[in-house]
């Protein structure tokens, strides 16, 4: 029985990684799509500040394009870390959503610190020996962990309440939404209880992390901690199979679609992809598309049904 939390954690990690990879792979395997960008495009070095683009130049295709990674970062960092879009467009929700997201960021950082500490201990480094590194890791873990749990649970409770009390959200919320938030609340409540009553210095957590990494799956001395591990594992596996996968898919929605302003100039690879998609078969049924003998996009798009009508008339 003692191995179950370890096995579950491994399984959850595997589900998480496979789910994330599968979603990314699925997106990357999509066919070429048309350009559908929205301005401002943050990587336009000179024009992003006012929403401009390279299309503001005469003969733009002859001019070098100045793309700025800093431009993207200066937009994305506050967007991700501060939820700038929600702050600007939905302030009342931000007061609920931001603590929740910040709590999750801190919880993720906490887990990283726990694993770092556990691995160091696995390799014989005694965190409690008074070394600077050990002291920093312990101090950060002790601050960031509880702060993350508290913020996340407060945010999740506030979001749950908002979804119930605000008719504009309630009608759109399914059982899944409430289940997700409830799961966060339960997981964070368990984490807080574990911190308060079973593992105040997170030594047990580090020991579990070290055991997990070092494959020394010794029994866990606390039922509360065991419950926390099991629930945390369920949450970890659950997140990427829901709409919450937006936390990594957002990269593609922004970079590939919203900021996808790359023109098809001297791009043999794009031309090749265009050739590929134009040869896809089309099965739309409307009379102006379903034309006998015309099967591919290329055949259908280069066929003028009205010209044929005219010819028939003649």
């Amino acid at each position, binding site marked *: 029985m003692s191995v179950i939390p370890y096995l579950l954690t491994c399984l959850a990690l595997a589900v998480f990684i496979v789910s994330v990879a599968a979603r990314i792979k699925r997106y990357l395997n999509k066919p070429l799509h048309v350009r559908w960008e929205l301005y401002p495009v943050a990587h336009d070095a000179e024009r992003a500040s006012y929403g401009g683009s390279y299309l503001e130049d005469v*003969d733009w295709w002859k001019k070098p394009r100045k793309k700025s990674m800093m431009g993207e970062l200066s937009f994305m960092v506050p967007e991700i870390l501060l939820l700038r879009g929600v702050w600007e467009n939905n302030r009342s929700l931000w007061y609920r959503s931001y603590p929740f997201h910040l709590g999750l960021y801190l919880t993720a950082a906490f887990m990283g610190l726990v694993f770092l500490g556990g691995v160091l201990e696995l390799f014989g480094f005694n965190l409690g020996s008074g070394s600077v590194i050990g002291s920093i890791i312990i101090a950060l873990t002790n601050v960031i962990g509880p702060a993350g749990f508290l913020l996340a649970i407060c945010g999740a409770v506030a979001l749950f309440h908002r979804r119930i009390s605000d008719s504009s959200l309630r009608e759109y919320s399914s059982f899944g939404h409430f289940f997700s938030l409830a799961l966060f609340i339960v997981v964070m409540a368990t984490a807080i209880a574990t911190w308060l009553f079973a593992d105040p210095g997170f030594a047990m957590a580090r020991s579990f992390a070290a055991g997990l990494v070092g494959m020394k799956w010794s029994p866990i001395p606390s039922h509360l901690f065991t419950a926390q591990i099991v629930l945390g594992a369920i949450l970890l596996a659950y997140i990427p199979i829901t709409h919450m996968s937006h936390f990594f898919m957002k990269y593609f929605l922004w970079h590939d679609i919203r900021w996808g302003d790359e023109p098809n100039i001297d791009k043999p690879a794009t*031309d090749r992809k265009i050739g590929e998609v134009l040869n896809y078969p089309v099965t739309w049924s409307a009379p102006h*598309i379903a034309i006998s003998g015309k099967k591919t996009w290329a055949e259908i798009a280069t066929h003028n049904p009205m*010209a044929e009508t005219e010819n028939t008339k003649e």
Partner: protein
Amino acid sequence: MANSPIHFKDFGKDTIQFRHISPDDLSPLPGDFENKPWTPLSEEVKEKYAAILDDTCILPIPMPKTKEEEEELVNKFISGMRKLFQRENNWTFLAMLETTMEHCAKCQTCSESCHLYEATGGDEMYRPNFRTEIFRRIYQKYVKKDPLARWRHGDIDLNWRTVARLGELAYRCNICRRCAQACPIGVDNALVAREIRKIFSQEMGIACPELHEKGSMLQLKTGSSTQMTGMVVKDNMDFIDEDFSEETGFSFKTPWDVEGADILLIHNAGEIMAWPENIAAFHIIFEAAGLSWTLSSELAGYDSINYGVFYDDVQFARTAILQAQAAKKLGVKKIVIAECGHAHKALTVIADRVLPEPLKVPRESYLPLLRDIVLSGKIEFDPSRNDFPVTLHDPCNMTRLMGIIRPQREIVKALCPQFREMTPHGAFNYCCGGGSGYAIMHRNNIEEWRMKVAGRKKLSQILGAFSDCRGPEAKKYVAAPCSNCKGQIRDMIKNYGLMENETLAYGGIVELVVNAMKAVNPGFIKWEEYG
């Protein structure tokens, strides 16, 4: 009934009309304007079409008469929806559509950005996510067939009324994508409206006649949705050359089919009929600047419109290909698109990944070129001729969707001493209310809807820009460099009596440029003609 709660389970209910927006609930306008009640839809329309959404009927869905026809409507819709999620049938937008289906947090952050939602006093039906949520629930349950769809995503009752209302609801959006701009995740609710339109057009053969039969199909047949053939358009252009040469004192002759010219200029051919002064202004400027340019009389080569952008990918591709072929035939160095917003986006941006290598021709907006001409000193200007309050409308397709923001401002700032911005503007502008093809529609209360709801925010913005000079004494001008936007603004000026009460004229940017040209007789812009 307006602003009363809406439940998704009611969307497919057997009621005569799903929603009624009370004129009293519409957002206030800056001025004393009467909110007239809706004109009832005629019995003939209600009998013939499934006009069961609200007080307007845009998409003419034939009213099913039998159980079999009802079932057919649903089955065809689901069949089309399945195709939307197939790479072969919808490679164009699959990536955007699927991510929008999967990743929305339903946080409603997009709501306040929508001018329609604001105009209706926050009516639930106009929330950008409302339509998407219905579509998403159908997708999860009937297309993706998620066994837990009801619990994970919410339930929906699918019947012919759901389908008919959703089709009509796809035409309660201007597809300006302001909501997408506000989404922190990158979800695009406006795209969903367009994708639903595609199901109806591409699978069910149902589309707005103005966009399809009288739009893209007519363009494929005659070369232009105006029905003008190449020969007719040349004749009309001769009249424009003659009339405006005489009127302006600037003699010019439009060049046709000049092989090897630097520029193929493509107008929205509707301008030739509705606003010939816009055509003349372009040609006067191009001639005065000494450009090497031409028009084409090839099929679709003289009409930049591409209504496929609004409802049908196949029609889009066909039109873009014809336009590119016209340019290739002449061997021009580039295509320059005149004052038409959707044509800008269609041919410059979307067609970029549709045109195969042999049809690639450089394509650009006229705005940077015009800016360079105005600022180059090649033409002498007298800005005092434009010394009246001017504001600038930003067509969504040029600004939010293409990032062309500064050239038009540099032009009007150089030539219009009393230029003032609307708030907000540029990439964060509001749609005129005629976007996605409505400006050319007048039947079944569509114009009433454009005036009451869709154009409300823009009207408010325009009047706000002129808040320091309201009243009939001061002549004012709204520059709207897009044919569709001009049509909408024209109708709003007429509907709200803004010529009589505000002496408000509208037009493009090129008219302002020619109005300030020293080589042209004064008074190119004529307020009396906009009354």
